[in-house]
């Protein structure tokens, strides 16, 4: 054989990746990322005094 030797890799454990699992994880990650960004923007607005609230 003259081709490059293949590097041995440990077999990955079997994972069930159903359609529902992929859609669920994708949607959850996206919703949480957007919600986190929204909370951070609100917190920064409070910190900077952009949003008025009594007693800052």
């Amino acid at each position: 054989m003259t081709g490059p030797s293949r590097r041995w890799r440990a077999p990955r454990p079997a994972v069930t990746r159903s359609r529902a699992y992929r859609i669920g994880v994708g949607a959850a990650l996206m919703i949480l990322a957007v919600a986190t960004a929204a909370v951070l923007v609100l917190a920064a607005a409070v910190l900077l005094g952009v949003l008025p609230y009594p007693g800052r």
Partner: protein
Amino acid sequence: MTATQALPFVSSAVIAVFALLVFRRYRQRGGTHLLLWGVGLVMFGIASFAEAYSSVAWHPTVFRLWYLNGAILNAAWLGQGTVFLLARRKSVARTLMAVLLAGSLLAAYLVFTTPLDASRFTPDEPLSAQYREAVGPSGEVRPGILPRGAPVRRITPLFNIYGTVTLVGGALYSAWLLYRKEIVPQRVVGNILIAAGALSLAAASTLVRLGLADVLYLAELVAAVVMFAGFVLATVRVPAPAPAARRAEA
């Protein structure tokens, strides 16, 4: 006692069990991240216990512990654990730890030297509705337990933003990495739950600052239960496939 005021009693119990499990895992496996998560949970538990206590009686030290642990420190310390877990360079994690430690000591000094207005306290309302000024039903501004413009109130959002970015962001990043590597679905879901629980806390803290003080106790209980479930899922031992199944896969 209202239902809202009863919530911190349940939260304290959940957090106590959660913290014990995290410390037990730390004793078995080591890891600075587990130690910091345990410390952050103890802070969370102290804050929750202070809320429970304050639905019965007033004590200035209990109030100061509530504000220091609940409003300022716990999210940042939990997030610092995640920084230690995920940081590729430990020097970055150690530097951030030193900054957090110095900031925490400063915050503790400020909390314990700020004068309190105990006359504002009532056991009938959650602490989150009393610690700062509130607009009364007839439009009058009622004073809070902490004085208006106190320096300690100005530094609180810094800790919470750091805690939210590191804890929620770290859990989401871990979930994404595990999902892409196709390793263990339970750990993906576990990290998503940890992120959701932490986000519930961060969102409630921000809403309190915007005047929705009643949501905090419920959000704390949701955060405690959801993060606990996430931790259990993320750390559960996955059984190895049976030999027959392994042969079938091959």
